């Protein structure tokens, strides 16, 4: 048994080290490319999803959002509510907002967008919009007749939906706003932001003070955004908020992301499809490479059998060779992924309409791909050598 294993290893070792170097290098190189391709594709799609999630959290809803109780239009008593929420350890920011629809007009152009009202200092603790002003300035607390617009609204800033924009509002110019409750105001455009996320770039912001004057009441909100120290533990925070007796609807960001993700859902399916097809193609490719390699050794296999070497020893030696190709390819692929591509993409994220996308390399995906490749290599080593020992010795040596 040990003898057999020894001999298999000996034959595999010699075949790898003394065989054709070009074939060896090429095989391992192709293996590593296949591996990189698989992991890269998975990682870019995961990175895409991750970016969407981060955008939802950082520019729209925070980690957790409170909405009015059922059958109520507003959340009331927000000062004390904010205090309660703040008492939960790990809460790093709270921003109470009103969200209201409005019709905008400028010169002969008009359009409908949602306006959120904020206390700018609070908002900065939750969202990152203030960091993405591409023109003018962010709101300040005392601004009452000023508005900031996402880049889709004013026009002239290269929005994705330029044709629906106001056609070129400049900083300092006024836009007319008709709120859903019938109030009409005129605001000077103070700044334009671009967070690289269309949903967010379709929003306009005014100050909370101004909104209260539009609505005629205060200490209320229609949405409270909560930012927590880490992402992923929303359920724990929600439990704590419930324990505090909060009766409002509490929703984690994932609920909103799911809505946003209707766009990206088809996309997840594409990702899955590509992953499955990619894995299949990779397996077949590896199979073919090793298969051809092994088939070309058919005569050698015949000779080994003729001189009385056991079939299992021969098969095992080809499996060892195939494993060597697969494992070397995977290791080199991992190096390429983690030491070259990942750092490069962190430095140079790809700009997508939903934001900057970097690679998100998940251990599970890497493992699945590794295991699949090794399984393919196993089959690729096993099947042709098994076939080669199935044919007659004379066919193997002299057949064609």
């Amino acid at each position: 048994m040990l003898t057999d294993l020894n001999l298999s290893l000996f034959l595999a070792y010699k075949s790898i080290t003394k065989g054709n170097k070009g074939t060896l290098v090429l095989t391992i190189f192709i293996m590593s490319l296949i591996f990189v391709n698989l992991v890269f594709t998975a990682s870019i799609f995961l990175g895409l999803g991750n970016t969407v999630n981060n955008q939802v959290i950082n520019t729209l809803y925070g980690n957790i959002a409170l909405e009015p109780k059922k059958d109520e239009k507003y959340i009331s008593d927000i000062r004390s509510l904010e205090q309660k929420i703040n008492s939960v350890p790990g809460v790093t920011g709270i921003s109470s907002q009103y969200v209201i629809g409005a019709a905008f007009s400028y010169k002969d152009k008009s359009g409908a967008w949602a306006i959120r009202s904020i206390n700018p200092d609070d908002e900065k603790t939750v969202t990152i919009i203030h960091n993405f002003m591409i023109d003018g300035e962010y709101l300040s607390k005392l601004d009452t007749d000023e508005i900031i617009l996402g880049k889709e609204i004013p026009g002239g800033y290269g929005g994705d939906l330029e044709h629906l924009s106001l056609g070129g509002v400049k900083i300092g110019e006024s836009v007319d706003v008709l709120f859903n409750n019938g109030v009409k105001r005129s605001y000077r455009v103070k700044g334009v932001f671009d967070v690289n996320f269309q949903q967010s770039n379709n929003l306009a912001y005014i100050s909370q003070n101004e909104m209260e004057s539009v609505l005629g009441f205060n200490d209320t909100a229609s949405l409270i955004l909560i930012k927590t120290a880490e992402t992923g533990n929303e359920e724990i925070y929600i439990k704590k908020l419930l324990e505090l007796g909060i009766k409002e609807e509490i929703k984690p960001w994932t609920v909103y992301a799911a809505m946003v993700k209707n766009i990206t859902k088809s996309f997840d399916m594409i990702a899955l499809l590509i992953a499955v097809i990619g894995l299949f193609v990779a397996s077949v490719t590896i199979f073919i490479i090793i298969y051809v390699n092994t088939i070309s050794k058919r005569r050698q296999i015949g000779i080994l059998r003729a001189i009385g070497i056991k079939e299992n020893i021969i098969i095992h030696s080809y499996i060892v060779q195939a494993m060597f190709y697969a494992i070397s390819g995977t290791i080199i692929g991992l190096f390429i992924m983690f030491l070259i591509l990942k750092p490069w993409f962190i430095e140079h994220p790809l700009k997508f309409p939903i934001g900057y996308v970097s690679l998100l390399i998940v251990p599970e995906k890497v493992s699945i791909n590794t295991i699949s490749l090794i399984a393919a290599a196993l089959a690729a080593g096993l099947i042709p050598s098994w076939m080669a020992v199935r044919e007659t010795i004379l066919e193997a040596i002299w057949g064609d």
Partner: protein
Amino acid sequence: MADDLTSNIGNENEILLGIRNLTRIYTMGEVRVRALNNVTFNIKRGEFAAIMGKSGSGKSTLLHQLGLLDTPTSGEINIGGIDILKLSESEKAKFRLERFGYVFQEYALLPELTALENVFLPAMARGRKKEDYLKTGTKTLEQVGLGARLHHRPREMSGGEQQRVAIARALINDPDILFADEPTANLDSASSRQILQLFQKLNREIGLTVLMVTHEPEDRKYVSRVIWLKDGELAEKEGISEAGNLQIAKD
């Protein structure tokens, strides 16, 4: 010359291979080729026998059957009272490893292994100790005159040298019999002579039984016996080889 046979190790009249009614029919679609037809003869221990005959007469086919490289359509091959054709495939492989040696027309070495590695491979497969197979391998290569080529790869050696490596590989497990199918067909006359003299030396000195296919009439001067084949059957021809003890088992 008969003295040579009696000086062999083992019983000089011991029948090593008892071949009975061996028939091999190749079927190719509708066509059936009777490559060997009802062949019966014995090979004694210590013989150096040549199988001769025209091209297509069934020489290779016969050697392949005897060497357990192919399965005959019918017949028996007895070794020590057992019909080795009845063995399972893995038992046959063990038999080939431990008791048979092969030298093919093409040198049939593994290109990735050195001369020494090619030679010790069958010893390694038998589970012999490393120092043992290294030593025996070296000694065997010296025996075939290749003591200076131990670490050469096949492509770094001439055809004659490669063929001698193949012979050393065939010898390392002390086989009962060595099968050779036109071992000199690809060699020039000097190398051929060297190979045949080597067989003769091994036959005389260690009593190795050799069964060799050849189509060179001249080769008869090296062998102790000629087995003639014609259309797949044993044929009586020219009577007696130079060695003087031709035994054709055809009645």
